[in-house]
């Protein structure tokens, strides 16, 4: 498998606090790679470092075997799209214009789109099912519609690699599934590599081809969902008991948080 994105020995800290501690990873073409871990583990920072938005104090990031620091932002944007966690609510453009902005890294000096650029944008909007919203502005959309707009914008960029920071946070289950299904389809049909930060361990197990469990800035585990989502590893990272069994639906691990009252009953004196 061809490696499309890799980090080697990444070290990054702010004001004397270490956020990433010798993180190494390799992500192959067509993978659905999910980064999990407790709050403050450094997940977002790792994603930003892989996207070239944060510069590590040590270590290197390579994209298609090229050192990230030697790539211009524009060259990078032609192969890698980014879906940040938050977008401003007061963005004045319509859905159609927002999606079309994804063409930016492919445009010339004056930034005028061709008919082909408009076709690609329309196709991306069709893919995420937002064509009917095209004339609305972002503040007139629901959370799920906004997320689909942002994803359409990223798809419109025609990347080989797409990085998403918690795209399903604050969405109801139906919209979470819709977003995850979209990304899975995009990954499978176009062979685009997906790298996602997620808080939802079950979604990670159901969709991820490989998971990375980050804990205090270090790689606690890296491998298939079954290898990473074990009760021991999760207890160590999250500091609470999470019951893991097999999801009858897909044969992947299923993680159930154990409430304190049940914990007291079943474990008999644990903690």
């Amino acid at each position, binding site marked *: 498998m061809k490696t499309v994105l890799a980090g080697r020995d990444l070290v990054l800290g702010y004001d004397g606090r270490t956020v990433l501690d010798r993180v190494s990873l390799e992500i192959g073409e067509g993978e659905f790679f999910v980064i999990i871990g407790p709050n403050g583990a450094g997940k977002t920072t790792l994603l*930003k470092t892989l*996207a*070239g*938005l944060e510069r590590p104090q040590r270590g290197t990031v390579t994209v298609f075997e090229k050192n990230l620091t030697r790539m*211009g*932002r*524009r060259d*990078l*944007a*032609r192969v*890698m*799209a*980014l*879906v*940040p966690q*938050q*977008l*401003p609510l007061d*963005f*004045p*453009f319509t859905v*159609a*214009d*927002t999606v*079309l*902005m*994804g063409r*930016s*890294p492919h*445009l010339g*000096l*004056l*930034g*005028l*789109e061709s008919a082909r650029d*408009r076709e690609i*944008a*329309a196709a991306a*909007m069709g893919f995420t099912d937002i*064509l009917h919203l*095209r004339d609305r502005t972002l503040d007139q959309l629901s959370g799920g519609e906004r997320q689909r707009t942002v994803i359409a914008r*990223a798809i419109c*960029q025609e990347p080989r690699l797409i*990085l998403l920071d918690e795209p399903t946070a604050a969405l109801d289950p139906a919209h979470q599934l819709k977003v995850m299904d979209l990304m899975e389809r995009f990954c499978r049909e176009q062979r685009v590599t997906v790298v996602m930060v997620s808080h939802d361990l079950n979604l990670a197990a159901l969709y991820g081809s490989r998971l990375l469990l980050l804990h205090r800035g270090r790689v606690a585990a890296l491998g298939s969902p079954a290898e990473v989502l074990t009760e021991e590893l999760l207890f160590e990272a999250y500091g609470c008991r999470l019951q893991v069994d097999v999801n009858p639906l897909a044969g992947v691990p299923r993680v159930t948080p154990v409430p304190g009252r049940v914990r007291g009953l079943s474990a008999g004196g644990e903690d």
Partner: protein
Amino acid sequence: MRSRPVFDKFGLRLLGVILVLGLLLAGSLLLGLATGSSRASLADGWQALWGGGSSTMATIIWQIRLPRVLLAATVGATLALGGLVFQALLRNPLAEPYILGVSGGSAIGAISGMLLGFSSFPGVTLASFSGSMAVLAVVLLLTGSSRRLRASISKDGLLLGGVMMNAFCGAVIMFLISISRHTEMQQILFWLMGDFSLMTRERLPLLLLAVPCFLLIAIHARPMNLLLLGAEAAAGMGVAVSRTIVLLLVATTFMVSVVVSQAGLIGFVGLVVPHVFRVLLGPDHRLLVPASLLGGASYLIVCDLLARLLPAAGEMPVGILTALIGAPLFIFLLWRAKK
């Protein structure tokens, strides 16, 4: 049911905007050249414009009115464009070209020059320009690294720093005025209100310094759109964020300093013209940049024309008219857009 296309033809809209506002600018230029405070009629001026009429009239037009109209056009274009850029970069609708302290710095420079008895050109001009460049240097030093610059923009630090800079300069200006003599006072006040009456031909080449800045801003129209989505999203779409911000900041401050050093502090153009076009054309900077450029130029030519014509004797500072006309106009547009 016929389905509507997903996207409007952007190229046609751009062409339309440039054509309509280009014609408006051409019309204002001709009107500004043909009319003036001399007793000659509009018809005489019109004739002289095309090579006929008296030689006195021709001299008035080419030696006096042309430099002045061109100054008004450049100042209007620069201030409107400067306001547009700062409103986009600082993500603040109240931003205007003077917001980082350029007005305060150049005013201190100009007034000091006047009190020291410098000639109006090049002495006061240079003093004013040095003043605003000093302010730009302080702003860049304070923000320091590009990382801090981005942080200070997102947290309004740059904006607040500029407001403080202007407040400080305001105090210094008041002090300078308080120690000035009566004769100097009039000169200072006219400069502070914006004044085109001292424009002469030899100053014209200096205005060309603004043109490269126009071009630089024009090719950054699209990145300005993307920056409205936030620094990270813009970077993800291929914008070199820090470099773009610094470039736009320096280019804008530079061109505004150039025109302010020629014409003094003309207010309101930079605030209102971008907003008028936002109401009319929407948020796309690829339309707003050419619109502000052409529209700002036309607007100030017309304001200057009125400033020359309205008073029975002499003329009034053009800075009075820009707000006197612009504020009600904008309130009207806003009221109509709400309906």
